[in-house]
């Protein structure tokens, strides 16, 4: 044992409460194999004993997009910034689905895993991290679908379709990171609170479905420009939702639809994600110690 041993050779000290900021990131790194195995488990088990398997990853967004085309495009007649409807909705659905999946999975961390958590210790943060990571696979498949549909539209209707990617598309990895960070942050805050107050679980599930309508998924942000609510620009209000600038930038970058929200708003999303993550990790760290007594 060449490791540095604190407090007179003691390697483990178990106390009633750790200080608020004592988050052991090194420990999480030590357990990276477990992280990897959880990711693998999540992926393998999701569609075990189904016939279509991962095809479901594709069917789901396709059906959703068709639904949106009928309801929002057809019946409500909401324009899509001149971009083909299918492409416009698919862009939003892919991104939102990833966010909502991560959020939903992470928010139930403690309740879903009470069985394991009650029997053995490992850094609890591994579970939400693994969830966010394994959802990337699903997201990747849906993104591939997006690219395929995109290429189809360019080839088949290239002459009268106005969409084209621009340099902002290079922001994509950063956008996904932001989205994951936000989902993780919100998710672990919720999961920490649901251990004690189970009401939040119910509240949370419909907040997420309402949240989608506060985000420009089924309509472009350009539609709200110029409108106001109680004297405030509706566009500003919408951008206060930290997911909005991310989705808008993605759509603008890949489709050239609408206009860039501006670095300011993207910075705001980044700041929001960092704060939420920080708060989330601190609360989570605090709760993980005693949650077995309250869950």
């Amino acid at each position, binding site marked *: 044992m060449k490791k540095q041993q604190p407090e007179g050779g003691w390697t483990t000290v*178990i106390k009633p409460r750790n200080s608020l900021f004592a988050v052991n990131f090194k420990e999480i790194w030590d357990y990276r194999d477990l992280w990897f195995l959880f990711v693998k488990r999540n992926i393998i088990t999701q569609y075990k004993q189904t016939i279509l398997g991962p095809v479901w990853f594709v069917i789901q967004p396709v059906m959703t997009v068709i639904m949106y085309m009928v309801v929002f495009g057809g019946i409500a007649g909401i324009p899509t910034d001149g971009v083909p409807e299918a492409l416009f909705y698919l862009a939003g659905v892919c991104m939102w689905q990833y966010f909502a999946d991560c959020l939903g999975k992470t928010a139930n961390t403690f309740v879903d895993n009470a069985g394991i958590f009650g029997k053995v210790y490992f850094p609890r943060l591994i579970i939400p991290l693994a969830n966010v990571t394994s959802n990337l696979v699903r997201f990747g498949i849906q993104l591939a679908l997006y690219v395929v549909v995109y290429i189809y539209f360019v080839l088949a209707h290239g002459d009268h379709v106005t969409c084209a990617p621009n340099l902002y598309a290079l922001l994509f990895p950063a956008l996904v990171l932001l989205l994951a960070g936000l989902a993780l942050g919100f998710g672990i805050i919720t999961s920490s609170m649901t251990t004690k107050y189970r009401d939040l679980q119910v509240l949370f599930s419909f907040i997420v479905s309402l949240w989608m309508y506060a985000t420009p998924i089924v309509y472009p942000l350009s539609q709200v420009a110029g409108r106001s609510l109680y004297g405030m620009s509706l566009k500003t209000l919408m951008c206060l939702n930290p997911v909005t600038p991310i989705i808008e930038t993605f759509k603008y970058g890949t489709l050239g639809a609408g206009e860039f929200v501006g670095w300011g708003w993207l910075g705001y999303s980044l700041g929001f994600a960092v704060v939420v993550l920080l708060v989330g990790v601190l609360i989570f760290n605090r709760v993980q110690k005693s949650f077995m007594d309250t869950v």
Partner: protein
Amino acid sequence: MPSAIEFEHISKQYRLGVVSSRTLGADLGRWWQMSVLGKEDPYLKVGETNDRAAAATSDFVWALRDIDFKVEQGEVLGIIGKNGAGKSTLLKLLSKVTGPTTGQIRARGRIASLLEVGTGFHPELTGRENVYMNGAILGMTRREITSKLDEIIQFAGVEKYIDTPTKRYSSGMSVRLGFAVASHLDPEIMVVDEVLAVGDAEFQKKAIGKMREISSQEGRTVLFVSHNMTSIRNLCQSGIVLENGMVSFSGTAEQAVSKYLSINQDENTQKLRDRTDRIGNGRIRVTDIVLKNKDGEVVVDTFAGDPLTIEFHLETRGEVDFSKMIVAVKLIDNYGTTVTMWVSDESKCDFSAIRDGVFSLDIPHLNMRPNTYNLGFQISLGTTGMNDWCDAIGGAAKVSVINNSFFEKGVNLKEDRGYIPLIDAKFRV
């Protein structure tokens, strides 16, 4: 030898009843008292010792209170106690599943806890995948698992099914696989909770052998919780007895076991005086029955073949001629059948010298198979005819006979072979 683990004033408080909608109020109240008014936590003052049987008077209970002991490096420590004495809570604290309310635990080295076999097994994953999953949860790296994989599979004896999802396994196979993974961990400190009580006889033997191998390795510290006194005696050097969340005894494993067996006697004879399910004219009444071992210590259990003394305490009504008293003592099985009986008119005992209303039955060797027997008695004056009965109770006390190795060079007796007397004999070829 430096100590491997130190418990310092460890306490754990639990809330009784339902964690209700009042918790938000209680939380806010606590926050107000502590943070704003600067007082100490109001909920830490209340609470009572953890006696499962007594009715609760407060909403909080101390599952553990002021636990303070050290475990030497390389020591195998048995933790014994009745259900609800706090054994599992203690292990949970040590394995960091939940935190203590006060105090601290310090340990040297990696702790692996085995509160359950096969934690994290997913029914859809194959045996091999689950070995990795379970191993990683218990703190092994993938490389460590890979290097031990063959050994693990071989130990579990499931080679044929290793690439089959574990949902197709019999429950015994899952348990074997789980134990196999756990027993191939190598931490400096191991915490084990009664996982031996699983699997078939063959595997149990294998598991106990493995446990002994683990605990005899140099420098390995093991904490072992069990209700099985024989495995405690076999595996552990030292033992502590938990009673109502407190350490009531600490010493060698042997001492701890006999201490534990003796504390149980409260439940056994406590209320004999108040029993109303008795037959007889009441001129003599038995008020208490006490079991004692060869050293005269009060016990409730005894090992098969060991000496046992059964002490009767009497009270009388009016003049009683003790020289005419006849006592019958029976051991009765769970089905109501008398297995053995001692009657004083056959052994010609004269009770007229009785002092303070106490007499005893000395059994030089209680040659009964391990089981729990009901002790019945019948006291009469003059004849054993029903009209002369003074006092009789069918199940006045319980006598638990514990398995040990009865026969010379034998192994432990099996516990499920009936309520039958043991007669010493030897097979020969």
